[in-house]
């Protein structure tokens, strides 16, 4: 709590309204919220099926896959960013092909920010959804099967509603991690205001020029994330 208190005490309260309306602040905030949300959606689309596979099926190398899923948790985000560059960079494994075929390049673009954030935040979602799936009785899926439900129908109409709170919790964690993402983003997507400069990047940049501006940006990030997390917690996690 002490660092938070320090932030509040040192805040330039008198010049706050004026600083808040600076266009750079709003642009960075909007970009941060947008990319964190898109990254969460991407994590949901990829992570929920992955969690289902890890929780419900048996295949050789499953433990290895599970270990790989958690790698971004322990990997310094900067290293993640470097790895992403090596794959999606203009001369990277996939990036070169993307560039040659579609004339499309991920690094240093807003899409690149989303990819970097999703890469770092994915484990949070997969781990909570897999945990929820293991806690949910698989026999409900069997009961659905005897009633004529295909695996997909059983998952959609029975399993997903049962693990809803777990998915929501994972999505919130995932979103929070994406919102705070710094290392992988600055390495992979750079620091272009309006395009790839998210709030954490703006804070870092401001710190080198104007301490008060950095404090203001930090406060905004703090207030927005606390407000959203508190709201989601009450709405989704409170009922479970």
């Amino acid at each position, binding site marked *: 709590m002490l660092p938070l208190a320090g932030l509040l005490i040192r805040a330039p309260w008198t010049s706050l309204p004026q600083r808040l309306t600076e266009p750079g602040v709003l642009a960075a905030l909007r970009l941060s919220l947008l990319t964190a949300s898109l990254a969460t959606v991407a994590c949901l689309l990829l992570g929920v099926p992955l969690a289902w596979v890890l929780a419900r099926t048996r295949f050789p190398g499953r433990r290895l896959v599970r270990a790989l899923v958690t790698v971004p948790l322990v990997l310094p985000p900067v290293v993640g960013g470097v790895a992403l560059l090596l794959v999606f960079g203009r001369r990277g494994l996939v990036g070169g092909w993307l560039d040659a075929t579609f004339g499309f390049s991920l690094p240093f673009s807003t899409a690149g920010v989303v990819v970097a954030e999703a890469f770092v935040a994915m484990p949070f979602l997969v781990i909570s959804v897999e945990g929820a799936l293991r806690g949910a*009785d698989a*026999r*409900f899926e*069997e*009961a*659905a*099967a*005897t*009633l*004529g*439900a*295909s695996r997909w*129908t059983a998952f959609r*109409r*029975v399993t997903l*509603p*049962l693990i809803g709170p777990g998915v929501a919790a994972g999505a919130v964690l995932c979103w929070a991690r994406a919102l705070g993402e710094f290392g992988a983003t600055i390495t992979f997507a750079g620091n272009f205001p309006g395009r790839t400069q998210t709030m954490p990047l703006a804070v870092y940049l401001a710190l080198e020029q104007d301490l008060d501006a950095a404090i203001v940006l930090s406060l905004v990030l703090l207030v927005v994330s606390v407000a959203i997390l508190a709201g989601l917690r009450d709405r989704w996690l409170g009922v479970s």
Partner: protein
Amino acid sequence: MSLDAHLIVRRPGFTLDAVLRAAAGEVVGLLGPNGAGKTTALRALAGLAALDGGHLDLDGERLDDPATGRFVAPEHRHIGVVFQDYLLFPHLSALENVAFGPRCRGVPRARARSEAAALLDRVGLAEHAGKRPRQLSGGQAQRVALARALATGPRLLLLDEPLAALDARTRLDTRAQLRGHLAGHAGPTVLVTHDPLDAMMLADRLIILEHGRVVQTGDAATITSRPRTDYVARLVGLNLYRGRADGELVRITDDFALTTATPQHGDVFVAFPPTAVALYAARPDGSPRNIWRARVAAVSRHGDALRIELTGPVTVAADVTPAAAVQLALEPGREVWAVLKATEATSYPAEPAPEGRPPQGPTGQ
């Protein structure tokens, strides 16, 4: 519509190997102690576990045949299952639970819901249609589970311990209602239970399963009067011995024989109820043909009577009135004379059961 199955399922340390047949409209009770393989058999029928051998035919359609690699997934079998703990979907109302099956089979939402409502009405739950499973009592949840299984118009109905989760009072009512609903099901029904009363009340025919094998099949009357294993004998409350008959005399052990009312030859079972055994403090007068010295091992309540477990040349259970027990001072360790009326002991050939396999090994108690 008929079921013809030879179920072979191998698990570590356990093999289920049972022949199961049921005609249209017939209710077959699969009865056995815990761990006998009843639930494994049910899962194999439903397609939730694959066979390792044998075959499974329903209405002439082969559903599972390891020899040819044919396996029809549970969602394509049209087999209704009522699970032991019902497994009602907790996030759906009773009505939505019942409508789930028809919806999966492509019935339009409105029709699925109206049919589900009609089914709930039939099981007497019309006013509970909107409730979630956790708001239902055990008996109500059981009926919703039954309605859900019947809603798909299954070709085969499977019930796994349908009454086990209910208290005694609810059980009585639910059993009577269940009997009515089962009578209305056109296809065969397989009912798994470890409760002999449920099995005899609900099933037309019983299949007794022990250690993964069928040990006896028949209707309730045959099973109750002519048990073939210790498990069945205990279930129906009879003393059971295996011996060699020469006329009315059946040799149970080298130095103990019983005289029965029915002359037989060869290997036989001898069965008699505990009430047929009378106990005396001193050797009674006259010349009873079945008389032996026995020692009281245990005394327990059994309905209005006391059940006395006796050791001696054979272990035997005897029922006496509390008054007699007091008069004889029956307590563990006491020596008494046991007398069995020959007219109450029946013997019957120990040849293999008509369907399935013979009991494993000798069954003298």
